[in-house]
Protein backbone atom coordinates (compact mmCIF):
# COMPACT_ATOMS: atom_id res chain seq x y z
CA UNK A 1 0.00 0.00 0.00
CA UNK A 2 1.36 3.40 -0.98
CA UNK A 3 1.58 6.37 1.33
CA UNK A 4 0.36 9.97 1.21
CA UNK A 5 2.75 12.94 1.53
CA UNK A 6 1.67 13.32 5.13
CA UNK A 7 2.38 9.68 5.96
CA UNK A 8 5.77 9.84 4.24
CA UNK A 9 6.84 12.96 6.14
CA UNK A 10 5.74 11.55 9.48
CA UNK A 11 7.45 8.22 8.78
CA UNK A 12 10.71 9.90 7.77
CA UNK A 13 10.68 12.04 10.91
CA UNK A 14 10.02 9.18 13.28
CA UNK A 15 12.67 6.81 11.95
CA UNK A 16 10.19 4.51 10.25
CA UNK A 17 9.88 3.05 6.77
CA UNK A 18 6.14 3.39 6.79
CA UNK A 19 3.26 4.47 8.98
CA UNK A 20 -0.49 3.98 8.76
CA UNK A 21 -3.29 6.29 9.94
CA UNK A 22 -4.16 5.84 13.60
CA UNK A 23 -0.65 4.95 14.71
CA UNK A 24 0.97 7.19 17.29
CA UNK A 25 4.48 8.29 16.37
CA UNK A 26 7.06 10.52 17.97
CA UNK A 27 8.22 12.82 15.18
CA UNK A 28 11.31 15.01 15.14
CA UNK A 29 10.43 18.63 14.47
CA UNK A 30 12.21 20.87 11.97
CA UNK A 31 10.65 24.16 13.00
CA UNK A 32 8.82 25.42 16.08
CA UNK A 33 7.11 28.78 15.69
CA UNK A 34 6.41 30.90 18.77
CA UNK A 35 4.15 33.91 19.35
CA UNK A 36 3.13 36.16 22.21
CA UNK A 37 -0.06 34.44 23.41
CA UNK A 38 0.67 30.71 23.67
CA UNK A 39 4.46 30.74 24.16
CA UNK A 40 4.71 32.54 27.54
CA UNK A 41 2.54 29.89 29.26
CA UNK A 42 4.69 27.16 27.66
CA UNK A 43 7.85 28.83 28.94
CA UNK A 44 6.32 29.14 32.42
CA UNK A 45 5.51 25.39 32.40
CA UNK A 46 9.08 24.50 31.48
CA UNK A 47 10.52 26.78 34.18
CA UNK A 48 8.23 25.22 36.76
CA UNK A 49 9.58 21.79 35.87
CA UNK A 50 13.15 23.07 36.05
CA UNK A 51 13.74 22.70 32.30
CA UNK A 52 15.83 25.76 31.59
CA UNK A 53 17.19 25.06 28.12
CA UNK A 54 15.35 24.52 24.87
CA UNK A 55 16.39 21.48 22.86
CA UNK A 56 17.71 23.41 19.85
CA UNK A 57 17.45 27.20 19.55
CA UNK A 58 18.25 26.97 15.83
CA UNK A 59 14.96 25.25 15.15
CA UNK A 60 12.88 27.96 16.77
CA UNK A 61 11.38 31.09 15.24
CA UNK A 62 9.86 33.80 17.41
CA UNK A 63 7.64 36.69 16.42
CA UNK A 64 5.19 38.62 18.58
CA UNK A 65 2.02 39.05 16.51
CA UNK A 66 -1.28 38.77 18.34
CA UNK A 67 -1.51 41.83 20.54
CA UNK A 68 1.24 43.93 18.97
CA UNK A 69 2.20 46.70 19.14
CA UNK A 70 1.27 45.99 22.76
CA UNK A 71 -2.42 46.73 23.21
CA UNK A 72 -2.38 47.00 27.01
CA UNK A 73 -0.17 46.46 30.03
CA UNK A 74 -0.86 42.75 30.35
CA UNK A 75 -0.09 42.05 26.70
CA UNK A 76 3.06 44.17 27.02
CA UNK A 77 4.15 41.76 29.75
CA UNK A 78 3.58 38.80 27.43
CA UNK A 79 5.70 40.33 24.67
CA UNK A 80 8.35 41.18 27.23
CA UNK A 81 8.47 37.60 28.50
CA UNK A 82 8.80 36.36 24.93
CA UNK A 83 11.62 38.82 24.18
CA UNK A 84 13.57 38.04 27.35
CA UNK A 85 13.17 34.32 26.85
CA UNK A 86 14.48 34.34 23.32
CA UNK A 87 17.58 36.29 24.44
CA UNK A 88 18.15 33.92 27.36
CA UNK A 89 17.82 30.91 25.00
CA UNK A 90 19.94 32.43 22.23
CA UNK A 91 17.18 32.13 19.62
CA UNK A 92 18.40 34.05 16.61
CA UNK A 93 15.36 33.84 14.36
CA UNK A 94 13.45 36.64 16.04
CA UNK A 95 11.30 39.31 14.42
CA UNK A 96 10.97 42.35 16.64
CA UNK A 97 8.31 45.01 16.08
CA UNK A 98 9.38 46.82 12.95
CA UNK A 99 10.36 43.56 11.26
CA UNK A 100 7.53 41.48 12.64
CA UNK A 101 4.58 39.74 11.06
CA UNK A 102 1.80 37.27 11.69
CA UNK A 103 3.65 34.03 12.37
CA UNK A 104 2.07 31.89 9.63
CA UNK A 105 2.77 34.58 7.05
CA UNK A 106 6.26 35.61 8.09
CA UNK A 107 7.71 32.11 8.51
CA UNK A 108 7.34 31.11 4.82
CA UNK A 109 7.89 34.67 3.56
CA UNK A 110 11.29 34.86 5.23
CA UNK A 111 12.38 31.46 3.94
CA UNK A 112 12.10 29.41 7.14
CA UNK A 113 9.65 26.88 5.69
CA UNK A 114 10.92 24.13 3.41
CA UNK A 115 9.14 21.26 1.68
CA UNK A 116 9.16 17.99 3.60
CA UNK A 117 9.51 19.59 7.03
CA UNK A 118 7.52 19.00 10.21
CA UNK A 119 6.36 22.22 11.83
CA UNK A 120 4.35 23.05 14.92
CA UNK A 121 3.26 26.32 16.45
CA UNK A 122 0.97 27.05 19.37
CA UNK A 123 -1.66 28.27 16.98
CA UNK A 124 -4.41 26.55 15.05
CA UNK A 125 -3.64 28.19 11.69
CA UNK A 126 -0.21 26.56 11.53
CA UNK A 127 -1.83 24.48 8.78
CA UNK A 128 -1.03 27.42 6.46
CA UNK A 129 2.55 26.29 5.85
CA UNK A 130 1.42 22.96 4.44
CA UNK A 131 1.03 24.69 1.07
CA UNK A 132 4.79 24.23 0.66
CA UNK A 133 4.54 20.45 1.05
CA UNK A 134 5.26 20.39 4.79
CA UNK A 135 3.44 18.67 7.62
CA UNK A 136 2.41 21.61 9.71
CA UNK A 137 -0.07 21.48 12.56
CA UNK A 138 -1.33 23.64 15.40
CA UNK A 139 -0.87 22.65 19.04
CA UNK A 140 -1.58 24.01 22.51
CA UNK A 141 0.92 25.37 25.02
CA UNK A 142 1.72 22.03 26.69
CA UNK A 143 2.58 20.48 23.33
CA UNK A 144 4.60 23.55 22.51
CA UNK A 145 6.49 23.22 25.80
CA UNK A 146 7.21 19.54 25.09
CA UNK A 147 8.35 20.42 21.56
CA UNK A 148 10.66 23.15 22.81
CA UNK A 149 12.15 20.88 25.48
CA UNK A 150 12.64 17.75 23.40
CA UNK A 151 12.58 18.80 19.72
CA UNK A 152 9.94 16.18 19.00
CA UNK A 153 6.26 15.56 19.55
CA UNK A 154 3.68 12.77 19.49
CA UNK A 155 1.25 12.64 16.60
CA UNK A 156 -1.53 10.30 15.70
CA UNK A 157 -0.96 9.72 11.99
CA UNK A 158 -4.02 11.30 10.36
CA UNK A 159 -6.10 9.83 7.58
CA UNK A 160 -5.89 11.97 4.45
CA UNK A 161 -8.71 13.43 2.38
CA UNK A 162 -8.02 14.29 -1.24
CA UNK A 163 -9.33 17.42 -2.91
CA UNK A 164 -8.74 17.44 -6.63
CA UNK A 165 -8.92 20.96 -8.05
CA UNK A 166 -9.67 21.11 -11.76
CA UNK A 167 -10.01 23.98 -14.23
CA UNK A 168 -9.27 27.66 -13.68
CA UNK A 169 -10.82 30.22 -11.40
CA UNK A 170 -13.22 32.53 -13.25
CA UNK A 171 -12.71 36.30 -13.33
CA UNK A 172 -13.26 37.88 -9.90
CA UNK A 173 -13.07 34.58 -8.01
CA UNK A 174 -10.12 33.83 -5.72
CA UNK A 175 -8.57 31.09 -3.63
CA UNK A 176 -10.53 32.31 -0.59
CA UNK A 177 -13.68 31.43 -2.49
CA UNK A 178 -12.30 27.92 -3.07
CA UNK A 179 -11.70 27.21 0.58
CA UNK A 180 -14.99 28.79 1.71
CA UNK A 181 -16.68 26.56 -0.86
CA UNK A 182 -14.88 23.44 0.41
CA UNK A 183 -15.83 24.21 4.02
CA UNK A 184 -19.44 24.91 3.04
CA UNK A 185 -19.53 21.43 1.49
CA UNK A 186 -17.90 19.41 4.26
CA UNK A 187 -18.76 21.47 7.37
CA UNK A 188 -16.67 22.80 10.25
CA UNK A 189 -15.90 19.27 11.39
CA UNK A 190 -15.82 17.63 7.96
CA UNK A 191 -12.07 17.09 8.12
CA UNK A 192 -11.75 16.53 11.85
CA UNK A 193 -8.45 14.79 12.75
CA UNK A 194 -7.59 14.47 9.06
CA UNK A 195 -5.07 15.90 6.62
CA UNK A 196 -6.62 17.85 3.75
CA UNK A 197 -4.50 17.20 0.69
CA UNK A 198 -4.95 19.18 -2.52
CA UNK A 199 -3.78 18.48 -6.01
CA UNK A 200 -4.90 18.76 -9.62
CA UNK A 201 -4.53 20.98 -12.63
CA UNK A 202 -6.37 23.77 -10.82
CA UNK A 203 -3.58 24.01 -8.30
CA UNK A 204 -1.11 24.84 -11.05
CA UNK A 205 -2.97 28.06 -11.77
CA UNK A 206 -2.62 29.26 -8.16
CA UNK A 207 0.33 31.26 -6.87
CA UNK A 208 1.92 30.37 -3.53
CA UNK A 209 0.17 33.32 -1.90
CA UNK A 210 -3.20 32.07 -3.12
CA UNK A 211 -2.40 28.54 -1.95
CA UNK A 212 -1.56 29.63 1.61
CA UNK A 213 -5.12 30.97 1.93
CA UNK A 214 -6.45 27.47 1.25
CA UNK A 215 -4.23 25.52 3.65
CA UNK A 216 -4.67 28.29 6.24
CA UNK A 217 -8.32 27.40 6.70
CA UNK A 218 -7.91 23.62 7.05
CA UNK A 219 -8.65 24.11 10.74
CA UNK A 220 -12.01 25.72 9.92
CA UNK A 221 -13.02 22.29 8.63
CA UNK A 222 -11.50 20.72 11.76
CA UNK A 223 -8.45 19.46 9.82
CA UNK A 224 -5.19 18.51 11.47
CA UNK A 225 -3.26 19.86 8.51
CA UNK A 226 -3.61 21.10 4.97
CA UNK A 227 -1.03 19.98 2.46
CA UNK A 228 -0.13 20.46 -1.20
CA UNK A 229 2.62 18.75 -3.16
CA UNK A 230 5.64 21.03 -3.62
CA UNK A 231 5.73 21.71 -7.38
CA UNK A 232 7.85 24.14 -9.41
CA UNK A 233 5.81 27.10 -8.13
CA UNK A 234 6.55 26.08 -4.55
CA UNK A 235 10.20 25.46 -5.33
CA UNK A 236 10.60 28.85 -7.01
CA UNK A 237 9.05 30.47 -3.93
CA UNK A 238 11.42 28.66 -1.58
CA UNK A 239 14.57 29.12 -3.66
CA UNK A 240 13.98 32.86 -3.90
CA UNK A 241 14.23 32.95 -0.10
CA UNK A 242 16.76 30.41 1.06
CA UNK A 243 19.56 28.21 -0.23
CA UNK A 244 18.93 25.46 2.31
CA UNK A 245 18.31 21.98 0.96
CA UNK A 246 15.10 20.05 1.40
CA UNK A 247 13.32 16.83 0.45
CA UNK A 248 10.13 16.75 -1.58
CA UNK A 249 7.60 14.03 -0.82
CA UNK A 250 4.78 13.10 -3.16
CA UNK A 251 1.82 10.86 -2.53
CA UNK A 252 1.97 7.44 -4.15
CA UNK A 253 -0.54 6.57 -6.85
CA UNK A 254 -2.01 3.86 -4.63
CA UNK A 255 -2.04 5.93 -1.45
CA UNK A 256 -5.13 5.58 0.66
CA UNK A 257 -7.62 8.45 1.10
CA UNK A 258 -10.58 8.30 3.43
CA UNK A 259 -12.55 10.54 1.07
CA UNK A 260 -12.05 12.14 -2.33
CA UNK A 261 -13.61 15.29 -3.71
CA UNK A 262 -13.36 16.91 -7.12
CA UNK A 263 -13.86 20.64 -7.39
CA UNK A 264 -14.30 22.31 -10.72
CA UNK A 265 -12.93 25.80 -10.23
CA UNK A 266 -14.72 27.10 -13.34
CA UNK A 267 -18.05 26.70 -11.57
CA UNK A 268 -17.18 28.86 -8.57
CA UNK A 269 -18.39 32.37 -7.81
CA UNK A 270 -17.49 34.81 -5.04
CA UNK A 271 -18.60 33.35 -1.72
CA UNK A 272 -19.54 34.92 1.58
CA UNK A 273 -19.70 32.85 4.77
CA UNK A 274 -22.57 34.16 6.85
CA UNK A 275 -22.42 34.38 10.67
CA UNK A 276 -21.66 32.42 12.88
CA UNK A 277 -19.89 29.53 11.17
CA UNK A 278 -17.18 29.44 8.50
CA UNK A 279 -19.23 26.68 6.84
CA UNK A 280 -22.12 29.06 6.10
CA UNK A 281 -20.72 29.95 2.68
CA UNK A 282 -23.19 31.09 -0.02
CA UNK A 283 -22.61 32.31 -3.54
CA UNK A 284 -22.83 36.07 -3.40
CA UNK A 285 -25.80 36.22 -5.76
CA UNK A 286 -27.88 34.20 -3.31
CA UNK A 287 -27.61 36.47 -0.30
CA UNK A 288 -29.09 39.74 0.89
CA UNK A 289 -26.98 42.86 0.37
CA UNK A 290 -26.68 43.43 4.08
CA UNK A 291 -25.22 46.74 5.31
CA UNK A 292 -21.75 46.48 6.91
CA UNK A 293 -20.43 48.74 9.67
CA UNK A 294 -16.88 47.63 9.07
CA UNK A 295 -14.71 45.90 6.50
CA UNK A 296 -11.47 44.24 7.62
CA UNK A 297 -8.77 43.23 5.15
CA UNK A 298 -5.86 41.34 6.66
CA UNK A 299 -4.84 38.30 8.77
CA UNK A 300 -2.80 35.19 8.08
CA UNK A 301 -5.53 34.17 5.63
CA UNK A 302 -5.59 37.21 3.35
CA UNK A 303 -3.06 39.84 4.39
CA UNK A 304 -0.36 39.06 1.81
CA UNK A 305 0.75 41.40 -0.95
CA UNK A 306 -1.42 39.84 -3.68
CA UNK A 307 -4.45 40.31 -1.44
CA UNK A 308 -3.62 43.97 -0.98
CA UNK A 309 -3.03 44.42 -4.72
CA UNK A 310 -6.47 43.04 -5.51
CA UNK A 311 -8.09 45.24 -2.86
CA UNK A 312 -6.20 48.32 -4.10
CA UNK A 313 -7.27 47.65 -7.67
CA UNK A 314 -10.87 47.95 -6.52
CA UNK A 315 -10.33 50.85 -4.10
CA UNK A 316 -8.45 52.93 -6.66
CA UNK A 317 -10.41 56.08 -7.42
CA UNK A 318 -13.23 55.06 -5.07
CA UNK A 319 -14.20 56.04 -1.52
CA UNK A 320 -15.27 53.98 1.45
CA UNK A 321 -19.04 54.40 1.88
CA UNK A 322 -20.47 56.75 4.47
CA UNK A 323 -21.37 54.75 7.55
CA UNK A 324 -18.76 52.06 6.89
CA UNK A 325 -15.20 51.83 8.21
CA UNK A 326 -12.46 50.00 6.31
CA UNK A 327 -9.32 48.68 8.00
CA UNK A 328 -6.36 47.25 6.08
CA UNK A 329 -3.81 45.20 8.01
CA UNK A 330 -0.81 43.84 6.07
CA UNK A 331 0.20 40.42 7.41
CA UNK A 332 3.90 41.24 7.72
CA UNK A 333 6.19 44.24 7.78
CA UNK A 334 7.58 43.19 4.40
CA UNK A 335 4.07 43.19 2.92
CA UNK A 336 3.55 46.67 4.40
CA UNK A 337 6.80 47.92 2.85
CA UNK A 338 6.03 46.42 -0.55
CA UNK A 339 2.54 47.94 -0.43
CA UNK A 340 4.13 51.28 0.34
CA UNK A 341 6.61 51.05 -2.54
CA UNK A 342 3.88 50.01 -4.96
CA UNK A 343 1.70 52.95 -3.92
CA UNK A 344 -1.02 50.73 -2.48
CA UNK A 345 -0.99 52.41 0.90
CA UNK A 346 -1.72 55.70 -0.80
CA UNK A 347 -4.66 54.20 -2.65
CA UNK A 348 -6.04 52.84 0.62
CA UNK A 349 -5.53 56.14 2.43
CA UNK A 350 -7.12 58.14 -0.40
CA UNK A 351 -10.12 55.84 -0.34
CA UNK A 352 -10.53 56.50 3.37
CA UNK A 353 -9.19 53.21 4.76
CA UNK A 354 -7.17 52.94 7.96
CA UNK A 355 -3.88 51.13 7.33
CA UNK A 356 -2.27 49.44 10.32
CA UNK A 357 1.09 47.85 10.96
CA UNK A 358 1.13 44.03 10.82
CA UNK A 359 -0.82 42.45 13.68
CA UNK A 360 -3.47 39.83 14.37
CA UNK A 361 -5.39 42.81 15.66
CA UNK A 362 -9.14 42.54 15.33
CA UNK A 363 -9.05 39.13 13.63
CA UNK A 364 -9.36 37.63 17.10
CA UNK A 365 -11.07 40.63 18.67
CA UNK A 366 -7.78 41.84 20.14
CA UNK A 367 -7.49 45.46 19.06
CA UNK A 368 -7.39 47.65 15.92
CA UNK A 369 -11.02 47.34 14.97
CA UNK A 370 -12.88 45.38 17.64
CA UNK A 371 -16.65 45.27 17.06
CA UNK A 372 -19.39 46.57 19.35
CA UNK A 373 -22.77 44.97 19.98
CA UNK A 374 -25.01 44.64 16.90
CA UNK A 375 -22.19 45.71 14.57
CA UNK A 376 -21.58 43.82 11.35
CA UNK A 377 -18.22 43.31 9.71
CA UNK A 378 -17.23 41.72 6.42
CA UNK A 379 -13.76 40.34 6.94
CA UNK A 380 -11.06 38.51 4.99
CA UNK A 381 -10.13 36.56 8.13
CA UNK A 382 -10.93 32.92 8.78
CA UNK A 383 -13.41 32.66 11.65
CA UNK A 384 -16.82 34.17 12.20
CA UNK A 385 -17.75 32.38 15.40
CA UNK A 386 -19.83 34.23 17.98
CA UNK A 387 -17.75 37.04 19.46
CA UNK A 388 -14.66 36.31 17.37
CA UNK A 389 -14.00 39.95 16.49
CA UNK A 390 -15.44 41.58 19.59
CA UNK A 391 -18.88 41.71 21.17
CA UNK A 392 -20.72 38.37 21.28
CA UNK A 393 -23.59 40.34 19.76
CA UNK A 394 -21.57 41.40 16.70
CA UNK A 395 -21.70 39.53 13.39
CA UNK A 396 -18.84 38.56 11.07
CA UNK A 397 -19.10 37.68 7.37
CA UNK A 398 -16.09 36.04 5.68
CA UNK A 399 -15.06 36.72 2.09
CA UNK A 400 -12.14 37.41 -0.26
CA UNK A 401 -10.21 40.71 -0.28
CA UNK A 402 -11.94 41.64 -3.56
CA UNK A 403 -15.40 41.16 -2.07
CA UNK A 404 -14.26 43.06 1.03
CA UNK A 405 -13.04 46.06 -0.98
CA UNK A 406 -16.19 46.20 -3.10
CA UNK A 407 -18.30 45.98 0.04
CA UNK A 408 -16.38 48.81 1.70
CA UNK A 409 -17.12 51.09 -1.25
CA UNK A 410 -20.86 50.46 -1.40
CA UNK A 411 -21.35 49.82 2.33
CA UNK A 412 -23.38 46.69 1.58
CA UNK A 413 -22.22 43.18 0.61
CA UNK A 414 -21.17 43.58 -3.00
CA UNK A 415 -20.01 41.32 -5.81
CA UNK A 416 -16.44 42.43 -6.64
CA UNK A 417 -16.99 41.65 -10.32
CA UNK A 418 -19.10 44.81 -10.59
CA UNK A 419 -16.00 46.87 -9.84
CA UNK A 420 -13.44 44.66 -11.53
CA UNK A 421 -15.33 44.91 -14.82
CA UNK A 422 -15.15 48.69 -14.60
CA UNK A 423 -11.38 48.66 -13.94
CA UNK A 424 -10.87 46.16 -16.75
CA UNK A 425 -12.90 48.34 -19.11
CA UNK A 426 -10.99 51.48 -18.08
CA UNK A 427 -7.67 49.73 -18.69
CA UNK A 428 -8.74 48.52 -22.14
Amino acid at each position, binding site marked *: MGMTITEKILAAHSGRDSVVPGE*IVNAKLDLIVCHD*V*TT*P*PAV*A*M*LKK*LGINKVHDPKKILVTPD*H*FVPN*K*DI*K*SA*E*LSKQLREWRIEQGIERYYEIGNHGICHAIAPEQGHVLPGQTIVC*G*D*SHTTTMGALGTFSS*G*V*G*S*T*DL*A*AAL*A*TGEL*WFKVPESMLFELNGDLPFGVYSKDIILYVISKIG*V*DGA*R*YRAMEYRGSGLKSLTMEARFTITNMA*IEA*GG*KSGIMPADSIAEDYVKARTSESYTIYNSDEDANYSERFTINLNELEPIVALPD*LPSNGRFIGEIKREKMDQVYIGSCTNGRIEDLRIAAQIFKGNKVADGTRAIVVPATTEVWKTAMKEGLLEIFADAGCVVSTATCGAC*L*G*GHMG*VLGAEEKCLSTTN*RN*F*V*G*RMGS*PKSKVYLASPATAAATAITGTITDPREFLKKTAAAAA
Partner: protein
Amino acid sequence: MPELPTNLKGFAHVYDRAHINTDEIIPARYLNVHEEAELAKYAMEDIDVDFVKRVKPGDFVIAGDNFGCGSSREHAIWALRGAGIKVIVAKSYSRIFFRNAINNGFLAIEADFCDNVKNGDEVELDLTAGKFRNLSSGKEASFVPVSDFARELIEDGGLLPHIQKKAAKAA
Protein backbone atom coordinates in the same frame (compact mmCIF):
# COMPACT_ATOMS: atom_id res chain seq x y z
CA MET B 1 1.82 6.11 39.76
CA PRO B 2 -1.42 8.00 40.42
CA GLU B 3 -4.18 5.83 38.99
CA LEU B 4 -7.08 7.34 37.13
CA PRO B 5 -9.96 7.96 39.50
CA THR B 6 -12.52 5.19 39.13
CA ASN B 7 -15.55 7.18 40.04
CA LEU B 8 -16.37 10.87 39.81
CA LYS B 9 -19.57 12.64 40.77
CA GLY B 10 -20.71 16.18 40.17
CA PHE B 11 -23.43 18.43 38.82
CA ALA B 12 -24.11 18.93 35.13
CA HIS B 13 -23.90 22.11 33.05
CA VAL B 14 -25.53 21.25 29.76
CA TYR B 15 -24.78 22.99 26.44
CA ASP B 16 -26.81 21.03 23.95
CA ARG B 17 -25.20 22.43 20.82
CA ALA B 18 -22.53 21.45 18.31
CA HIS B 19 -19.37 23.47 17.60
CA ILE B 20 -19.00 25.31 20.91
CA ASN B 21 -15.76 27.08 20.12
CA THR B 22 -12.84 28.30 22.17
CA ASP B 23 -13.90 31.93 21.69
CA GLU B 24 -17.03 31.10 23.65
CA ILE B 25 -15.18 29.08 26.29
CA ILE B 26 -12.63 31.84 26.89
CA PRO B 27 -12.90 34.96 24.72
CA ALA B 28 -9.68 36.29 23.19
CA ARG B 29 -10.04 39.55 25.11
CA TYR B 30 -8.87 37.62 28.20
CA LEU B 31 -5.87 35.98 26.57
CA ASN B 32 -3.51 38.63 27.83
CA VAL B 33 -3.12 36.48 30.96
CA HIS B 34 -2.65 32.75 31.42
CA GLU B 35 -3.14 32.24 35.15
CA GLU B 36 -5.80 29.64 35.71
CA ALA B 37 -7.54 31.51 38.55
CA GLU B 38 -7.75 34.67 36.47
CA LEU B 39 -9.05 32.89 33.34
CA ALA B 40 -11.59 31.01 35.46
CA LYS B 41 -13.46 34.24 36.15
CA TYR B 42 -14.44 34.48 32.48
CA ALA B 43 -15.04 30.82 31.62
CA MET B 44 -17.93 30.33 29.17
CA GLU B 45 -18.69 34.05 29.34
CA ASP B 46 -19.81 34.42 25.74
CA ILE B 47 -22.17 31.47 25.82
CA ASP B 48 -23.42 31.60 29.41
CA VAL B 49 -22.66 34.62 31.59
CA ASP B 50 -23.99 32.90 34.71
CA PHE B 51 -21.79 29.82 34.38
CA VAL B 52 -19.10 31.07 36.74
CA LYS B 53 -21.72 31.97 39.35
CA ARG B 54 -23.26 28.49 39.25
CA VAL B 55 -20.26 26.25 38.81
CA LYS B 56 -18.91 24.32 41.78
CA PRO B 57 -15.72 22.29 42.16
CA GLY B 58 -16.17 18.81 40.69
CA ASP B 59 -18.90 19.79 38.19
CA PHE B 60 -19.28 18.40 34.66
CA VAL B 61 -19.79 20.16 31.34
CA ILE B 62 -22.02 18.18 28.96
CA ALA B 63 -22.07 19.19 25.29
CA GLY B 64 -22.68 18.17 21.69
CA ASP B 65 -20.43 17.58 18.70
CA ASN B 66 -17.04 19.15 17.99
CA PHE B 67 -16.64 20.75 21.41
CA GLY B 68 -13.72 23.20 21.67
CA CYS B 69 -13.32 23.88 17.96
CA GLY B 70 -11.50 26.99 16.80
CA SER B 71 -8.28 28.31 18.21
CA SER B 72 -5.56 26.17 19.82
CA ARG B 73 -5.68 28.15 23.07
CA GLU B 74 -5.11 25.81 25.97
CA HIS B 75 -6.53 28.68 28.00
CA ALA B 76 -9.91 27.02 27.28
CA ILE B 77 -8.93 23.98 29.35
CA TRP B 78 -7.37 26.12 32.07
CA ALA B 79 -10.42 28.37 32.33
CA LEU B 80 -12.78 25.41 32.73
CA ARG B 81 -10.49 23.58 35.12
CA GLY B 82 -9.88 26.78 37.09
CA ALA B 83 -13.63 27.27 37.38
CA GLY B 84 -13.91 23.83 38.98
CA ILE B 85 -14.90 21.60 36.06
CA LYS B 86 -13.57 18.11 36.57
CA VAL B 87 -14.86 16.31 33.49
CA ILE B 88 -16.22 17.24 30.08
CA VAL B 89 -18.60 14.84 28.38
CA ALA B 90 -19.18 15.78 24.75
CA LYS B 91 -20.45 13.88 21.76
CA SER B 92 -17.14 14.66 20.04
CA TYR B 93 -14.24 17.09 20.29
CA SER B 94 -12.14 19.25 18.04
CA ARG B 95 -8.72 17.71 17.58
CA ILE B 96 -6.63 20.36 19.32
CA PHE B 97 -8.97 20.71 22.30
CA PHE B 98 -8.95 16.96 22.85
CA ARG B 99 -5.19 16.85 22.58
CA ASN B 100 -4.84 19.75 25.01
CA ALA B 101 -7.13 17.95 27.46
CA ILE B 102 -5.05 14.76 27.38
CA ASN B 103 -1.83 16.74 27.61
CA ASN B 104 -3.16 18.40 30.75
CA GLY B 105 -4.27 15.13 32.29
CA PHE B 106 -7.83 16.43 32.03
CA LEU B 107 -10.77 14.09 31.44
CA ALA B 108 -12.59 14.73 28.16
CA ILE B 109 -15.00 11.85 27.66
CA GLU B 110 -16.73 11.10 24.39
CA ALA B 111 -20.39 10.25 24.92
CA ASP B 112 -23.68 11.39 23.41
CA PHE B 113 -25.56 12.35 26.54
CA CYS B 114 -27.18 15.76 26.03
CA ASP B 115 -30.64 14.27 25.65
CA ASN B 116 -30.38 12.41 28.94
CA VAL B 117 -29.42 15.22 31.25
CA LYS B 118 -30.58 18.67 32.24
CA ASN B 119 -28.84 21.51 33.97
CA GLY B 120 -28.19 20.78 37.64
CA ASP B 121 -28.67 17.00 37.44
CA GLU B 122 -26.21 15.00 39.48
CA VAL B 123 -24.06 12.83 37.21
CA GLU B 124 -21.46 10.15 37.74
CA LEU B 125 -18.59 8.94 35.62
CA ASP B 126 -17.73 5.35 36.39
CA LEU B 127 -14.46 4.65 34.63
CA THR B 128 -14.22 1.05 35.80
CA ALA B 129 -17.62 0.08 34.46
CA GLY B 130 -17.23 2.39 31.45
CA LYS B 131 -20.57 4.01 32.26
CA PHE B 132 -21.77 7.54 32.52
CA ARG B 133 -24.88 7.94 34.67
CA ASN B 134 -27.44 10.57 35.42
CA LEU B 135 -28.05 9.96 39.12
CA SER B 136 -31.04 12.30 39.11
CA SER B 137 -32.90 10.36 36.41
CA GLY B 138 -31.21 6.97 36.56
CA LYS B 139 -30.31 7.03 32.84
CA GLU B 140 -26.91 5.71 31.80
CA ALA B 141 -24.76 5.52 28.70
CA SER B 142 -21.48 3.96 27.62
CA PHE B 143 -18.66 6.13 26.40
CA VAL B 144 -15.75 5.73 24.02
CA PRO B 145 -13.06 4.12 26.19
CA VAL B 146 -10.05 6.30 27.00
CA SER B 147 -7.23 5.10 24.71
CA ASP B 148 -4.19 3.44 26.28
CA PHE B 149 -1.99 6.28 25.17
CA ALA B 150 -4.29 8.93 26.65
CA ARG B 151 -4.66 6.90 29.84
CA GLU B 152 -0.89 6.74 30.21
CA LEU B 153 -0.59 10.52 29.81
CA ILE B 154 -3.46 11.22 32.18
CA GLU B 155 -2.05 8.82 34.78
CA ASP B 156 1.35 10.46 34.56
CA GLY B 157 -0.32 13.82 35.21
CA GLY B 158 -0.05 15.13 31.64
CA LEU B 159 2.43 15.29 28.79
CA LEU B 160 5.26 17.14 30.51
CA PRO B 161 5.49 14.88 33.59
CA HIS B 162 5.17 11.94 31.18
CA ILE B 163 8.16 13.13 29.16
CA GLN B 164 10.17 13.73 32.29
CA LYS B 165 9.38 10.25 33.49
CA LYS B 166 10.49 8.78 30.19
CA ALA B 167 13.71 10.82 30.25
CA ALA B 168 14.46 9.69 33.82
CA LYS B 169 13.95 6.05 32.78
CA ALA B 170 16.27 6.44 29.81
CA ALA B 171 19.01 8.05 31.93
